């Protein structure tokens, strides 16, 4: 038996362990204890015969056998579940018992630990949090990562664009790596590590155990350095046949557009021009004006020169619709389990024409053959999307406020002002033409699955072999329709066909030993792992197609596109690992782990590395007898851990500089190779993260109030990252082993059942974390550029925002250049602060009254800065509100000064700043104008569910449960007053706090869900 933990520490337990009372009539019963909801076995449940005081605990597979007398009453207990009593007699040879979870006792849950092995949370010396299906799916999100947002302390999830397949960035307990791509936790589905879970159906997920920090995932090695999301998918269970059907429809609408001025329209230099796209013309005056060039029939289109009261930019967008249908079948018996689900999701986005669909099938099952248990699951997902590349939104937010977009939709009509040949300007394209004519299509097939053989060799030794497979095939096709016109209005037809294949095979052989020495229980795991990742990308493109509607590279003019080509890549690793857990008297636990990895991406001399870990936990209220009687404090656990985890965040083939042919090479047989711009480093070593953590879990007032808090420290050294270099070195970046980052994190979770009675239940929860992240050392010097304006600076959090700023005199007045009236730039950039909000607070609550329940989810993050690239573009285009603050007239810069020749300053009262386009364009390039605090409060989810009462259900036989839910996402947002840029959560290119000019504003959504069980 692996996990010999006992549930009740009453004195007679000692008897159980040592004395075998065998009465004359005694016989043995066997059975299995499982969770009612999921059918998963419950290891370590106590089975006790009331009369004889005989007791035993279930093994890893939930099995037990016990000697009883006929008519004995046995009690089955498992903390966190409602206890069960039943009478046994000789006919009950095999008992299949299902326990129901007791939601009040959330601290004694079973978690999915490393290697997918289920453990009682009391044994764990590290921070974990379990998110179950109900909680995960209450917002009816399509992506499980979005569904996790603000539900786990220390976990930061950012959904950062508004496409029909949004990108998501997830970071646990702060950044440990200067390599900004390498801060995501690993994903493990049913014991198999997979590269991403974007395509996983949240409804298939039984629970997600979040193992926080490197400590928790030591056994998974390098990938687990940022923690792990251990995902357990649903299994069928015996005696619990169920068919469910769910339908969700939701609608989404754009909001939080960046501010724009609506006083001045198209033109330059305050003179109207019908052909200009920029808003530097005269003030809107409500007259009809010539608009754009003459149409083919010679008529001159006109447009009202006034901004409508409604923001005209909203007309680019539509209401997005998402329709989701789910069916699942589950069931099983003693030897088989079965779970089948089918999901179909159709999304049409907030940009017309953007759509995606996802159809997924999952089959999970198991079968027992004596001592061999086989498990399998397979998940196939077909995902298709069609989106417009960046462009339409950019065109709109740099265009004047009076453009009437509904008139721009029928661009195919050659006589329309929307036609690209007639569009009012050729400096920008009609956004609706961009939407229709430029498409990026993708068809993805994701197949993942596992096979697992679990053989019990002896009661104290079992062997598991688990083979995981994950493949993703992405067939992409990008097209640009040919539109023949003059000059800028001409569009070359183009097509690119891209095929991206990824395949991972992962195998684990695990030996599991356990033994009990009196009060000491021990369990040891020895394992070996291999992994191979293969990637193959092929791209074929043509940038000049012959015919407008024939998208084939063969029907082209000239050569294939320079991007045509293929690439292969392979990553392999091998590992051996071990874990030893010792428990004393079920209240003190010690875990030792060790792992050695060999990875293919490093030089053979550097590719082997070992890393150890240790953790411990103590259940106080069981260790200290005095606490057992305590009415206030009903559960107390303290835990601590230390470990050091090796990591290699390097892609294959990075030890040498690859040469490529650019600038048109090869020209016939003339080749010309140039090196890459990253300085290679063949001597890269693994990096190591040392971390420790201590924390406590407390329950008060009969488990009505729970508090969990931890302090985490991590120290990452010898970071592998692509450091930006001065271009004078010849290179733009270098891969180095340098830099040290520390994180000091406080996490607090508080959850309370404020109100519990027969009809009503009110629960409120709070998750708080503060991350104090600091760059301790760098490769060379005191600062390193990470991405554009984000830096790593010694002594500051990572990344920090450093921006160009005005030169100010000692009184803080802005210094003006006497000759030009332009502000003078400060010699040095200004450090504004961290781009990651260090404070994060999640709030959630649920209230139920009889069959009605209401839930909400809110989150606030504060203390960080963001930088938006949209702003300088708006300044240049004259759409930014600040460009009208002085009515576009020359003005004396408020609170400004002139620098005298002796270095002193006098107040500026006479030097005039021009206030024209040239001036405001310059202002837009002073980056401090582009930054803002990223503080926010968001009400992310509200949902109301009504469950049909038993009474109504009992009148029919069709279904056994039914509910209806109405929900809304992103309902309220409060931002820092200086942030009129957009969504403070938006990120670009795996940065933090960096908003791209490409990013489309966010949306809010609302919808309903119907749920039936049969």
């Amino acid at each position, binding site marked *: 038996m692996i996990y010999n933990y006992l549930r009740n520490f009453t004195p007679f337990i000692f008897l159980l362990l040592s004395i075998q009372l065998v009465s004359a009539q005694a016989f043995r019963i066997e059975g299995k204890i499982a969770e009612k909801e999921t059918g998963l076995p419950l290891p370590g449940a106590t089975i006790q015969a009331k009369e004889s005081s005989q007791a035993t605990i279930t093994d890893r597979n939930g099995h037990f056998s016990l000697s009883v007398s006929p008519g004995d009453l046995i009690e089955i207990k498992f903390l966190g579940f409602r206890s069960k009593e039943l009478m046994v007699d000789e006919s009950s040879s095999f008992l299949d018992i299902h326990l129901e979870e007791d939601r009040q006792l959330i601290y004694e849950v079973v978690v999915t630990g490393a290697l997918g092995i289920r453990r009682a949370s009391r044994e764990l010396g590290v921070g974990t949090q379990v998110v179950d299906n109900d909680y995960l799916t209450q917002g009816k999100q399509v992506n499980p990562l979005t569904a996790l947002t603000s539900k786990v302390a220390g976990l930061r999830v950012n959904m950062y664009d508004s496409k029909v397949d949004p990108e998501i960035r997830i970071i646990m307990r702060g950044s440990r790596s200067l390599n900004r791509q390498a801060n995501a936790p690993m994903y493990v589905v049913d014991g198999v590590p997979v590269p991403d879970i974007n395509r996983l159906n949240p409804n298939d997920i039984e629970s997600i155990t979040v193992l926080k920090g490197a400590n928790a995932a030591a056994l998974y090695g390098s990938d687990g350095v940022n923690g792990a999301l251990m995902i357990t998918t649903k299994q069928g269970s015996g005696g619990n046949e169920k068919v469910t059907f769910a339908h969700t429809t939701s609608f989404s609408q754009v909001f939080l557009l960046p501010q724009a001025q609506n006083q001045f329209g198209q033109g*330059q*230099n305050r*003179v109207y*021009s019908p*052909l*200009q796209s920029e808003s530097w013309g005269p003030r809107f005056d409500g007259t009809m004006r010539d608009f754009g060039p003459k149409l083919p029939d010679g008529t001159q289109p006109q447009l009202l020169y006034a901004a409508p009261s409604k923001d005209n930019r909203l007309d680019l967008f539509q209401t997005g619709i998402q329709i989701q249908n789910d069916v699942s079948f589950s069931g099983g018996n003693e030897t088989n389990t079965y779970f089948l689900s089918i999901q179909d999701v159709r999304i049409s986005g907030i940009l017309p024409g953007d759509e995606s669909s996802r159809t997924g099938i999952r089959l999970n099952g198991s079968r027992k053959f004596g001592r061999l248990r086989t498990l399998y699951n397979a998940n196939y997902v077909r995902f298709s999307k069609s989106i417009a590349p960046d462009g339409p939104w950019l065109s709109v937010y740099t265009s004047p406020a009076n453009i009437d977009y509904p008139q721009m939709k029928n661009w195919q009509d050659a006589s329309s002002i929307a036609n690209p040949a007639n569009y009012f300007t*050729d400096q920008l394209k009609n956004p609706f033409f961009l939407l229709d004519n430029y498409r990026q299509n993708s068809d993805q097939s994701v197949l993942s699955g596992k096979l697992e053989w679990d053989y019990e060799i002896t009661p*104290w*030794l079992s062997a598991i072999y688990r083979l995981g497979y994950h493949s993703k095939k992405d067939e992409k096709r990008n097209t640009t329709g040919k539109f023949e016109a*003059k*000059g*800028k209005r*001409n569009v070359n037809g183009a097509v690119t066909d891209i095929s991206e294949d990824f395949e991972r095979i992962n195998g684990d052989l695990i*030996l599991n030993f356990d033994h009990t020495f009196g009060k000491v229980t021990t369990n040891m795991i*020895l394992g*070996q792992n*291999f992994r191979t990742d293969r990637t193959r990308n092929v791209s074929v493109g043509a*940038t*000049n197609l012959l015919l407008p509607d024939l998208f084939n590279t063969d029907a082209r003019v*000239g*050569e294939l596109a*320079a991007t045509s080509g*293929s690439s*292969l*890549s392979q990553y*392999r690793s*091998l590992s*051996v690992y071990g874990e030893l857990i010792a428990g004393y008297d079920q209240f003190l636990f010690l875990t030792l782990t060790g792992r050695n990895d*060999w990875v*293919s991406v490093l030089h053979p001399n550097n590719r082997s590395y070992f890393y150890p870990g240790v953790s411990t936990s103590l259940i106080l209220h069981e260790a200290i007898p005095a606490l057992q009687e305590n009415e206030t404090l009903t559960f107390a656990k303290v835990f601590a851990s230390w470990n050091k985890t090796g990591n290699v965040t390097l892609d294959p083939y990075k030890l*040498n500089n690859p*040469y490529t042919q650019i*600038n*048109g*090479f090869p*020209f016939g047989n*003339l*080749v*010309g190779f*140039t*090196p890459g711009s990253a*300085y290679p480093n063949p001597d890269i070593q693994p990096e190591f993260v040392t971390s420790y953590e201590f924390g406590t879990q407390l329950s008060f007032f009969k488990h009505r109030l729970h508090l969990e808090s931890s302090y985490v420290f991590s120290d990452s050294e010898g970071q592998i990252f692509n450091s*930006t270099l001065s*271009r*004078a*070195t*010849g290179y733009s970046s270098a891969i180095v082993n340098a830099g040290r980052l520390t994180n000091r994190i406080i996490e607090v979770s508080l959850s309370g059942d404020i109100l519990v009675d027969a009809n009503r239940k009110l629960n409120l929860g709070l998750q708080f974390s503060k991350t104090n992240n600091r760059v301790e050392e760098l490769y*060379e*010097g005191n600062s390193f*550029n990470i991405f*554009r*304006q984000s830096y790593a600076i010694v002594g500051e959090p990572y990344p920090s925002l450093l921006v*160009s700023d005005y030169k100010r005199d000692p009184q803080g007045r802005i210094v003006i250049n006497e*000759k*030009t009236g332009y502000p003078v730039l400060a*010699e040095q950039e200004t450090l504004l602060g961290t781009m990651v909000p260090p404070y994060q607070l999640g709030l959630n609550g649920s209230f139920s009254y009889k069959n009605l329940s209401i839930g909400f989810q809110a989150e606030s993050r504060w203390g960080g800065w963001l930088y938006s690239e949209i702003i300088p573009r708006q300044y240049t285009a004259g759409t930014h509100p600040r460009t009208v603050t002085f009515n576009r007239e020359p003005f004396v810069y408020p609170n400004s000064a002139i620098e005298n020749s002796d270095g002193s300053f006098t107040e500026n009262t006479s030097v005039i700043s021009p206030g*024209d*386009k040239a001036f405001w*364009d310059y202002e837009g*390039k002073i980056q401090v104008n582009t930054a803002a605090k990223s503080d926010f409060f968001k009400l992310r989810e509200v949902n109301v569910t009504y469950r049909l009462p038993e009474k109504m259900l009992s009148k029919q036989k069709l279904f056994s449960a039914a509910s209806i839910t109405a929900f809304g996402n992103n309902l309220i947002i409060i931002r820092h007053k200086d942030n009129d840029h957009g969504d403070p959560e938006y990120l670009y290119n795996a940065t933090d706090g960096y908003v791209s000019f490409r990013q489309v504003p966010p949306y809010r959504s609302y919808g309903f869900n119907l749920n039936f069980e049969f």
Partner: protein
Amino acid sequence: MKRIKYIRPIVILLLAVFFQSCNGFLDVNENPNAPVSENLKLEAKLPAALLATVNQESGQLNLLGAFWGGYWGTTAEGANLYFHQKNYNGPGLRDVRDGYPVWETSYTNLLYYHIIREQAGEEGSLFYLGITKIMQGWHFLRLVDIYNNVPFDEALQGTGNVTPAYEPGSEVYRKSIDLITSGMADIRNAPAGLSPGNADLLFKGNSRLWLRFANTVKLRALLRQSEVAPVSYIQQEIGVIQSEGSGFLSEGENALIQPGYMASTGKMNPLWETYYRNVEGVETALHQDIRPTQYLLDRYMEREDPRVDQLYVAINGTFRGVRFGDPVVNMEQYGRSVTSSFKGPAENSGQPAGIFKSATQASVLMTSSESLFLQAEAAHRGWISQSAEILYQKAIAESMKYLGVSLSDSETYMTHPMVAYQGTLTQLITQKWLALNTISSIEAWSDYRRLGLPEFPNSRSVNNPDVRPNRLMYPETERMTNLENVLAQGSDDILSSRIWWQK
């Protein structure tokens, strides 16, 4: 402990299986997609470096020089184009995202030569070695012209020196000239028959032309210092050139680069593809909106210059230009359809025009005309002993020839009162300016900064007529990575800071 007994053999078995499979399993880190330096011979690298140089010269530098050297403006429709060049927005041009990365491109090109230079040094390939030194000299001189103080000795070392110190522009100038001199010696010492041949896109391994080209580049660098450098240094370096004896690029010796352009996107002559027509013959965006300044056209027209007809499309029998940086959208006067665009075969009865001859025409690194103008100026200053007048006339004739003007028209032009040699620097530089238009425009801006000639009008986007751009600010990428060295150079203001060779 019988259970423990089992553990050991199991572990041993496990490890045995493991290390068995470890052998070779992990050796998959050889890049199957791209060659590395060791796989490539010198002739696989040099063409790419030379083409990168000429691309920068005829692309990036040419555009900046054309706007700031008085050649180009934009149509009324294109009033918003190249706005940061028009309003001298220093921070805008140094911007990491939307800036004008002359620094970055220059050092990348320098690196290409650096790597070839190291390999040539190891292999003892003197001809290649010489070429890389000359071309590095070329790029460093250009860098100083744009940024003044720049890293030289400490540059190009990868992680060997991540914060290269800057050296004064004057130092870099001297060192670059010395580097070119040293490269010339290598080429002279290269054994015959071991030339790079076709990999030398510039002169096909002709050492004489390389030496002449190198001397010309040095002469250009010396003339750049005409207003500041001590006479003794100039004389000494002129002496080096003269005693070397190869002379300068002369008539018919244009430094052209022809990799074998073909009519396909990305493989055409970049000037053609950017400023004239795409592969399908569609007019490019910049052909629509780039226009000569009226000042430039007036200078051609007042001299009855036959080149203007080769260069530009006439509007109702005359040539109409624009005003650089004009913020006013005046369609009647400066619209696309009423101003003279670049002329190419499509507007020239299918015949090659002045600058735009064909999609596969060679790119120009340096014209013989420029070389002759440089010699003429040197003669005018008494640095060399030839006749300034003859060199001046040859220089104009070479320009006429390159732009496709007939010999007779060219000779007639030479007799025009404004053209006939007067022996003034103003006349000489004005003619040089007319000859380098859109071909080596960066030289025009440099001559303006050096001599204030010709006196073309300032950008109309600037509210103060006295301010002109003297340089680019150090790029943001450099501030991000090498700030201390940037700050140590003092002000890099685009308007008030000056290049060392400016008076």
